[in-house]
Structure formats: structure tokens, C-alpha cells
């Protein structure tokens, strides 16, 4: 995983609450057996005027001019500003894969659905939770100036506006370290293989039925 330390980028606003994973990446694209290539279909139903199917050349599809990410001023955005309960719905990691493939590295919202939050962090994307009022202020600032940029600094856990206002945010120590180092969590866990085996032995003694397979 690619480390994430400090990101400065254009902010795109997504002004609706409860944006769900079906909206982020519609289900027809979940049939892929790959991890990449979902970016062109991010928000597919909102972004294009026609119906999307896997394998199309998205560059040739009619774009919805009213959809925020299609506005020229938000091209190249790497920070998404969103409303409460962003990423609700399914556990599909295709949603963070699509956001990342599109180019987002940081998401800011008053709240995120839990599994989605986890999935983002595991893919080197930083979900930042700020209170409703701060998010409201950022929405106003983004609307007021084209090319609006934010700086997000993970070590100091702060979002910094162009006028140098800082908003602090919380993140648990483990996720922070994993993002900073671009950690391979599986490799890390395998360092504890002996402890996992010891646990299994203990448990096999206390609850042997858990280790019985149906045909045994």
C-alpha cells in the first residue's frame, strides 16, 4: 500500500447525505475480478446520461453536465467533501477502489459508514471526520472559490484551509501508522503466527466442536 502523509489538492463537494455504495459504484461493475479500473465508473449513474455497462469506453459516453464531478473546476480533485453517513450500504471494497482509482486520496465528512471507513483506510485513503459545522463551512468555501484547495496533514491530524485555519481530526493510532507507513497488515499479523496457533490450541481444548468438520 502506498503511504499517505500529506496531501494538498483540489476539493470536490458532494452535497448530499447518505451517499451509498450502490451510488459510488453501481453493481454491474462489481462483476470484475480485478481491483483496478473502477475510476471511470465512479458515481456512474449520476455522472453519465446513458446506462453504463462494464467494458464501455467511458470517454465516449454522454456526461451529465449537472453532476458536480463533471464541472471543469473540479477536474483533478483529490479531496472529496461529503455529507453525513457517506459510504453507507454494502461492504464492497469496490467503492473505495473506485474513489481511489478516480484520484481521491482524502474524504471529508461529518460521518462515514463503518465498514466503508475501514475499507478506505486499508486502501491508503484517509477518511477525515469533522463536525457538521466545520464541514458546512468548507462547503461554503469550496463554492465561493474555484480551484479551492485543502491541505491534509496526517502526522499532525489536521485539515488546513487556504487562510491557514486548522481543523483537527481524530484517527486511531493503528490506522494512522498503517497509512503513514503504507503497511502490509497481513505481513504484520503473520508475525504473531505463534500466538494465533497457541490460541487455536487453547480453543480446541475448550470448544473442540469448533474444529470438527461436517464429514469428520
Amino acid at each position, binding site marked *: 500500500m502506498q503511504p499517505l502523509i500529506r496531501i494538498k489538492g483540489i476539493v470536490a463537494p458532494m452535497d448530499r447525505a447518505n451517499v451509498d455504495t450502490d451510488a459510488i459504484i453501481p453493481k454491474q461493475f462489481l*462483476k470484475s475480478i480485478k481491483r483496478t479500473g473502477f475510476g471511470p465508473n465512479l458515481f456512474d449513474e449520476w455522472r453519465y446520461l446513458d446506462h453504463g455497462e462494464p467494458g464501455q469506453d467511458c470517454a465516449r459516453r454522454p456526461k451529465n453536465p449537472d453532476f458536480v464531478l463533471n464541472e471543469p473546476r473540479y477536474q483533478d480533485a483529490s479531496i472529496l467533501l461529503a455529507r453525513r453517513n457517506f459510504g453507507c450500504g454494502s461492504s*464492497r471494497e469496490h467503492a473505495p477502489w473506485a474513489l481511489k482509482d478516480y484520484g481521491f486520496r482524502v474524504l471529508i465528512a461529518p460521518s462515514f459508514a*463503518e465498514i466503508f471507513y475501514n475499507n478506505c483506510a486499508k486502501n491508503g485513503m484517509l477518511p477525515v471526520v469533522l463536525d457538521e459545522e466545520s464541514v458546512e463551512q468548507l462547503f461554503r468555501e469550496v463554492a465561493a472559490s474555484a480551484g479551492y484547495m485543502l491541505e491534509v496533514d496526517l502526522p499532525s491530524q489536521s485539515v488546513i484551509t487556504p487562510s491557514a485555519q486548522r481543523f483537527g481530526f481524530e484517527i486511531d493510532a493503528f490506522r494512522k501508522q498503517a497509512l503513514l507507513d503504507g503497511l502490509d497488515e*497481513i505481513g504484520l499479523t503473520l508475525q504473531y503466527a505463534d500466538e*494465533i496457533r497457541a490460541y487455536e490450541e487453547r480453543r480446541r481444548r475448550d470448544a473442540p466442536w469448533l474444529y470438527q468438520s*461436517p464429514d469428520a
Partner: protein
Amino acid sequence: MAAATLYDKLWDIHVVRDNADGTSLLYIDRHLLHEVTSPQAFEGMRLAGRKPWRTAANLAVADHNVPTLNRAQGIADPVSRLQVETLDRNCAQYKIVEFRLADARQGIVHVIGPEQGATQPGMTVVCGDSHTSTHGALGALAFGIGTSEVEHVLITQTLIQSRSKRMLVRVNGQVEAGVSAKDIALALIGRIGTAGATGYAIEFGGAAVRALSMEARMTLCNMSIEAGARCGLVAVDETTIDYMRGRPFAPRGALWDRAVAYWRTLASDPDAVFDRVLELDGADIVPQITWGTSPEMVAAGDAGVPDPATEPDRTRRAGMERALAYMGLEPGLPMTSIRPDKVFIGSCTNSRIEDLRAAAAVVQGQRVADNIKLALVVPGSGLVKRQAESEGLDRIFQAAGFEWREPGCSMCLAMNADRLQPGERCAATSNRNFEGRQGQGGRTHLLSPAMAAAAAIRGHFVDVRKL
């Protein structure tokens, strides 16, 4: 020892190690796999030169993409077919038990886990699917994970997790006849919102929950993710133990007795402390129907569509207006005047035998109304289908004009051929009414199986208690 909640008991017994940063490495007893969220995990494992930690902990089935018609001809859509074949190949390579399409045990992953006894009280159960919360009905710690975590579980049999807060939802008293677990779930979500339980594990208790069958408890826990909770739980009691008895993966002989003795300890201690307690009165809960594009946009089946003008919160008001525009509904319209085009009885929420019985009881001897273009019954598994057929339910449905299909997720998320056309309105027993969920432009109203069956017969929504 201090009094503990059921959640904490389950958590504590699965801790392999506590990390300095407050997270824990949790042991996972059962890992369920399906075709959509696993291919990238297997690929990652292979690329890293790693292998599964404990093959027998895994159980796989294809459900999301599978056709519900003409199974013998295989999967027509080449992209879906490749995904299902990839699961078959991966399971064959790593010797993971998989119920393939032709197997009578194939079905929706959250239906077959409990049905097979592969989900057991006291287990940790995970699956790359948010509705894994369903399995908590058996007193298991069960939650959905993403694909990176699927890979992590495959390879290490553990997950790095932080403990949730605990919420007790106590449903006191009794619910009226005609009011189901689906209505309890929707009423709860209507009250606390889709983010109302974010950060919490919900335990459902109270007399009305104790009175629910195992399958109804699964419906309730299934929907806890729709309230934002990572998992739902119901304490083990005789209902749980009776349900487990004789299932293929359930313990046998002397081990059965030992297991049962342990399972009986799986309840919150009487003086355990919850971070939040919510009380509902069962007698107040009436049949529910959603009117919007989020499960929290729900109303009593005999109420009117709410008016956004009365909503003070700006974001919420805008959401309501957008939802009504998408759903093609006006404020104040009586729910009973809304006429669906299609009816879908199925999904991991409501496709078990009791759901089909409840729907069939309403349908018996009636005809589907003329304005209903398609009424579908999709059993949750091949075994549910077989059971229903042995009871003659298939004939009741078909005589009324319903189609009787092969098991799978089907029109719950419309990854296969079963879907809504733009603008079509559906009465659905599934769990999500998001925009486009059942097909682009499709309009979903969530309700119970009996309510869906009643809507099919009348051609409009109706409170099933008033039939």
C-alpha cells in the same frame, strides 16, 4: 467477574492478542465466501505467495450473480460467468468447501450459513458482505468485511478490530398478528436513522424478541446494518438450541452436549451495562413501508407520504425532496394508494421458509392484480425451495400468478437478469431501497413478506392486518 454483555463475552473469548494501540487481533471461527468480494482476495494471496490458514473454517457459495431461471443452461452473461467460475476455481485449488450451482444446498450466503449449522452460537463469523450481521441471531459475533479483510482472514484466520460500543434495543411486550420482524427492524431504523447505531453492536432483547422464531431473529439482525450497526445479536435460548439440533455442521454426540452447555452461557449478564439502551413497545409497532431512497424513510403502512416542508434540518429536507422526486411521489399521498409494478419476495432478509409461508398464507386462493407486471418468489436456498415445494407453497404462488424461481440474491441488487426498468415501482422484501438498487431508475418500497403478498393481490399497498 464483572457483569458482561453478550457482545463483550464473545469479543473477549476471541482475542488472540491486544495491541498497544487499542485494537485487538480477533480469531475468526467461520469465514463465508461468495463470488463478488473474494476474487481479488484470492488473487492477492496468490501474488504474495501465501496460502489459507485453516481451510476448514471457510465455506463458499455463489449467490449474487446467479441466474434464477434456466439454471441448466449456465450463466449467459460472460462477465458474471467468469466471476462465478473464478470462485469455483479458487475453491477447487485451495480445497475450500463450495456449494456449486447444481448443488441443492446452494443459496444466499446468509441463508445457508445458519441452515447448514455452519454458523453456530459463540462463533465469530465474517463474510465479505455487510449483511453478515444476520448470523448474530444465533448468538454469534458476525459482521461484514471488505475484500482486504477477506484476504486477511483467509491467510491469518484473524482480523484486527476495535471494540464497538454496546446498544441494547429492548422490544417490550408483544407485537400484534400481522406485524413481523421486518416491521420491528424498519420501525427501529425509522426512529434512530440509518446512522443511528454507527459505532455500536446492537443486542436485541425484550419479550417481543424472545418470542420471535430463529428465522425472524435473522431478519431483525440482518437489518441492523441498515441502522448503521456493524452487527446485531440475540442471546442464546431454547429457540436457538432447538434450531441448531441436527444441522449438518452442528456438533454431534458428546460434543453436542458440551457445546449446548457453553451456548447457554451466551447471554448478557442481568446487570451488564450498555452504552445506550433503547426501548420500543411491541404493541406500538405497525406494518411498515418505505417511501424514499433510504431505509430510514419509512412510514406506517396506513399513513401518508411525509411532507419535507415539515422537516427543520436542511440536509435532511433536501434528501427527502430528492427522494420524493426520484420515487415519483407527492407529500400527503396515502401509502395505500401507491401501486407497484413488480413484487419481489426474496433476499437474505426475507427468503426463508417462514417468510414464504407468511406470504403464501396471504396469497392462497387469490390472484395477482392486473397492474402487477411481475411477481417473483425467490427462495433463499435450494433447501428452502425444496421444503416449500413439499408444503405445496410453490403451487399456491404459481396458481396466483407468481413466478417461482431458483435461489439467489436476484432482484435484491439486480446483478443478474432480474431487475426493474427505469421508473418501475417494486414492493420488495429486501433490505435496501437506494437509488438504482434494483435496476437503474427503479423505485423500491421495502416491506414484510405478508405486506408484499398483499400488495401483489390488491395491486396497491395495504395494511395486511386489514385484509
